[in-house]
């Protein structure tokens, strides 16, 4: 039997429920938007930061040269001490410069804004240097001996290659620290059907097959919730800044870059003795 009041109440309930869903979604969107704004602003912050740090390179150069002049007026033993300090200055300056070059590339600096052939092995070596301190501290072995010298991506920005490598290697580093044990990461590459196939294996905490796709979804950095809880137990608090809690965007960005170049990325069942295996295919 037709009952307008009943229908009205039903519509009201649907309306209320839909409104609640929309409000919740809106609130979630607002949170994501705020997060995205913060992430986007880090690029600018990174450039400001690197500009400030770069000015220190000049100070180090001038101080080093002044010390060198001073050393010439000292006795041999004193001169050696000052020369040793100078050697440390030079090492520090070179290291800072390497990190700044990387920051400028990844942070959107105008260097090398031209796509071209980019050799893989050389870039892996540079990214390894970025993680050198943390890898040494946590006794992580990074093996890339199975990367041939002539594997190169055909037409890509150097910055995009660094972005992919920095993200996937930092994920593996976090994962092996969280797992403990032997802490091994292996990168290998080969050419297959006209594509470069880069494989990253690690002895980290691994990933359940059901989560192979989920990890590429923005804001899902730790789908099983065990990475960061394990990491917290094993990492020194002062290294939190380096490794971070993850924006949840890294692998999503990596996937975007790879898809834009006609490639693919996927987690696959790990080979024997490994806990995780990521495969990247790129022209």
């Amino acid at each position, binding site marked *: 039997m037709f009952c307008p009041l009943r229908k009205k109440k039903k519509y009201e309930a649907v309306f209320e429920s839909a409104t609640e869903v929309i409000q919740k979604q809106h609130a979630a969107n607002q949170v994501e938007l705020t997060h995205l704004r913060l992430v986007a602003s880090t690029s600018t912050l990174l450039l400001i930061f690197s500009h400030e740090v770069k000015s220190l390179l*000049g100070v180090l*150069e*001038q101080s080093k*040269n002044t010390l*060198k002049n001073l050393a010439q007026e000292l006795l041999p033993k004193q001169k050696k001490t000052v020369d040793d300090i100078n050697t440390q200055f030079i090492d520090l300056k070179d290291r800072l*410069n390497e990190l700044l070059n990387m920051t400028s590339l990844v942070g959107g600096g105008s260097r090398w804004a031209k796509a071209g*052939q*980019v050799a893989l092995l050389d870039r892996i070596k540079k990214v390894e240097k970025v993680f050198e301190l943390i890898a040494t501290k946590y006794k992580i072995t990074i093996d890339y001996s199975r990367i041939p010298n*002539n594997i190169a991506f055909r037409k890509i920005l150097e910055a995009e290659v660094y972005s992919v490598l920095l993200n996937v290697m930092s994920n593996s580093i976090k994962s092996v620290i969280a797992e403990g044990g032997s802490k091994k990461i292996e990168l290998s590459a080969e050419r297959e059907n006209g594509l470069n196939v880069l494989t990253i294996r690690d002895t980290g905490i691994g990933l359940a097959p059901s989560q192979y796709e989920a990890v590429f979804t923005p804001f899902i950095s730790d789908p099983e919730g065990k990475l960061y809880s394990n990491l917290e137990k094993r990492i020194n608090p002062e290294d939190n800044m380096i490794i971070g809690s993850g924006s949840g965007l890294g692998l999503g960005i990596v996937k975007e870059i790879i898809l834009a170049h006609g490639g693919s990325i996927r987690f696959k069942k790990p080979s024997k003795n490994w806990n995780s295996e990521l495969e990247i295919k790129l022209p």
Partner: protein
Amino acid sequence: MSKKLQFVWIDDNPQIRGPESINIAKRLKADVDYKDVKNNDTQKCIEELIKRSTQPDLILIDHKLESKLFKTGSSVAALIRDRWPSCPIVCVTGVDIDTLSTINKSLYDEVIPFDYISDYDEKILSIANGFKKISETRYMNLNKLFDLLQVPESEIEKLKLILPDELKDDYTDFGIVTNLSDWVRRILMSRPGFLYDKLWTATLLGIKEASFKKVEALFKSAKYKGIFALDSDPRWWKASVLQILADNTKVRGLSFEKGRTLSYGKNKITKKDFSQSYVNQDETPETVAFIDDTSPDRYPESLKNTIPHPFYTDLLFFDQIRKIKPQE
């Protein structure tokens, strides 16, 4: 006793670069007149500089200037160039050199990073001395130009063919010094062909770059000693290297086969000194190739593992610049 070189340094960072001007003066044994354009009137500084009766031997200048009239060193450089066309102007900058526009770069004779200025001491001196030698050459002509470059007899005809017109026809032009410096440093010394750097020379001889020191003394007379030569980054005349190689070896064959039989005193080239291909270490490299389009890293490589580098055009009598061929 020779007179000290007179340098002028125009900059707006007296806290850091002021003391460095004292350091560089000591290192290069030169007089460096530091012009602080941060606390002083830039225009007045430039006017005073231009009114000087004698031309400085070299001007160092910052690129970004905090000044009302002159925002960049390149605009000051244009003014100075008008007054002293044969004075080298070297930009010393803290900004990323790759971000400078081609026009800005072209107004300087060299751009060097302040953060590594002491690595460029020899280069700064060679520029000052090179410009001085060219300027002091009276009634310049082709023969005098080849004297400045100390060109081997066998290379003169080939060089005559490829010299830019402005360097072989009209020596009255005010820009001759800058043009000559530009061509010598950016073409003759930078592109392998007439002159080879250590990696190219070692590869020509079929040996590793690090092993070249074993026999380097044999090639002393082939070393480039003309204007702008650098001990820290030497060059050798390829033709003279090949001649010395022929004179010092009895084997027949290609240059790498002869080079691998060389010895000098107790130093003998052995198998472990042989150069190796970067891609496939069993192969003999015949050329030097960049690893890709963006990296400055180069390695010896066999021709078949390389392809022409897209960013370099071919030049007559110069070697082709190549890069590693990516795996198919």
